[in-house]
């Protein structure tokens, strides 16, 4: 039971963070695609902007790993 709840908790930590990252990247990505169409030299900056919200899911992964390692 405890192991199951721990696993669900870890899954939620990564999953919810991934949803947040996805929502942010969707908005940044669509705006970025428009910028690149007008200004192709901005590609590097757009990659950078799209990549920024990924930290959320990585932090989610860190929390999930802690839940599994410390709680499991």
């Amino acid at each position, binding site marked *: 039971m405890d192991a199951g709840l721990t696993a669900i908790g870890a899954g939620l930590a990564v999953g919810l963070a991934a949803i947040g990252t996805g929502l942010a990247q969707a908005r940044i990505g669509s705006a970025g695609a428009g910028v690149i169409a007008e200004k192709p030299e901005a590609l*590097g*900056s757009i*990659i*950078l902007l799209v990549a*920024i919200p*990924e930290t959320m899911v*990585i932090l989610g*992964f*860190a929390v999930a790993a802690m839940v599994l390692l410390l709680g499991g």
Partner: protein
Amino acid sequence: MNVEMLPIEIIGLKRDLQNILHALRKLGCVHIEELVETQEISARPLTLDREMLQEQEELGFLAARLQGLLDNLGGASHRLDITLEQDYRLQARQGVETLLPKVQTLINRSEKLKSELASLPRYEASLRALLPIIPQSARLPGNRSIGVLVSREHVGVLEAVAKHILDLTAGRAELVARDVDKSTRAMLIVFPVEFTQEIESLLGREDVSRLRLPTELEDGPPDVILASLHRRMAAIPDELEIVEAMQAELAAEWCQKLAAWRDALQDELEASSVLSCLGETDLTFVLVGWIPAKEFSQVQQSLQEQVGETILVRQIPLTSTLRKRVPIILRNPQPAKPFESLVNLLALPRYGHLDPTRLMALFLPIFFGMILGDVGYGLLLLLISLGLTRKLNSGVARDVLIILAIGAGWSILFGFLYGEAFGTLGEQLGMHALWFERASAEHLAGLLVMTLAVGAIHLTLGLILGVWEAYKEKNRTHLLDRGGMLVGLMGLFLIVAVLTDFLPSSLMTPAIALLILGIVLMGASLGWLGILMGPIEFIGLIGNILSYLRIAAIGLASVYLAKVANDIAGMAGNLIVGIIIALLIHALNLVLGAFSPTIHSLRLHYVEFFRKFYESGGRPYQPFKSRIPLDQGL
């Protein structure tokens, strides 16, 4: 490293301007600066005289006509080395005058044939509708037929028209009608030829649209016209083929010459576009630009050889305003060259600041290898990227492939360290990890600590470089900010070391003091706002280190996908089905394995590493040079 650049000024007599520009294009190393942007030089902007403007306009028009001809003839498929004559402009004009009418005629003919081919099938449907109602009188000599199609809603008009025609021809006309479909009624009017004009004007008055056929088709009753239409439809493709063969013949004869003339003209136009960057006095022109320091004496000597003593080429002082405008040439050893494309993708470094290409060349492939860490995928990627590299001579795509090949090399190395080949397949075949199995639960904590340690080292290096850059630039804000981060980070490392019993607990107080000092220094760089922002920025720095956990996370995702491929193959029950499933999933993992580690390693550099020291904003070096060889007598 940035190449050392010198700001230069070239002053010469206006009569020598074209010679000087030609010589500079040939040398191809001077980046010409707009005079209006260079406040250090006092000269008015060069005004182009009417003759020169007219000449440019003519050249532009001629180049556009050449391009138009090339587009219509399908362009030059491959380039030959064509030596252009001195009077190539005259030849180009004559060539255009000769070729244009021929090409125009062929294009018109081709378009007419194509539109005929598209429209004839539509007439066929209408003529077929009239076939069953052709009366015998239609075949008599001296009679003519007209087909009429009317919507069934307006069928009353047909009856009125029929009555008028019978009255007009005193009953010598014959009219037959039939429903073609649910909405259309067709009528065929057969009448003596002498009534043609009256009947056509009657149809016009009553606004009845007759079936008009292309003039190429024979006149007569619908069955005769239909036969003629079929003959025409069969003949058109042959005629089109002849026209296309004539176009191909013209293309083979002219396209290479047209392309060579167009390139030469565009090159001349580009060369004359720099005139707007120059300045002038009554008798002289002034040109300001940038040149790599080692090229200066050669340029000076070449220009003096070109026009004698009536030219002045000198270095001007590099003021702080000019320093911001220095164009950048990156200079790196050959193995690091491909990584310049990745630096360019973000932004060029500012002049005199650190070029991160070599650091990227060192760390990025290692991160790639740590993430992918698989002998099988690494080998496949290495072979694919090396194979594709051979097909490309230059460009960003080739650079990316080379980077991928280096990353694949590291991936093979880490694959041996992790004991992975196509995920867990290596282990099943007797392969053992030389370091640790990252996919096993007992090594998860170790893997996470390793990636955090890599992040800590990478960011510490970035901060040390940042402090050095700030010191060189004498930028107090950057020095306090980056120095504070570095000190705070050292404090944090000490705290972690004490908590994990690597260092004695007596060091806890100095460690906390260091941490607080670092946060205070960071805050001091922001003034009063720093009281709040200092701690927040430090938390951001910790977030930067945690971001390196992606090395573990992405890598584990890859291992587990490979494991899924192997396990599903084992469960399939049928060897062939199992192999196919495994191949498909491994292929997907390989594509992800090429893409994902590249993007994430790039991100760790752009977002986490570069932000600690990188000063971007350099302008690209664009030397004034010809795109075509200038030793052709031009």
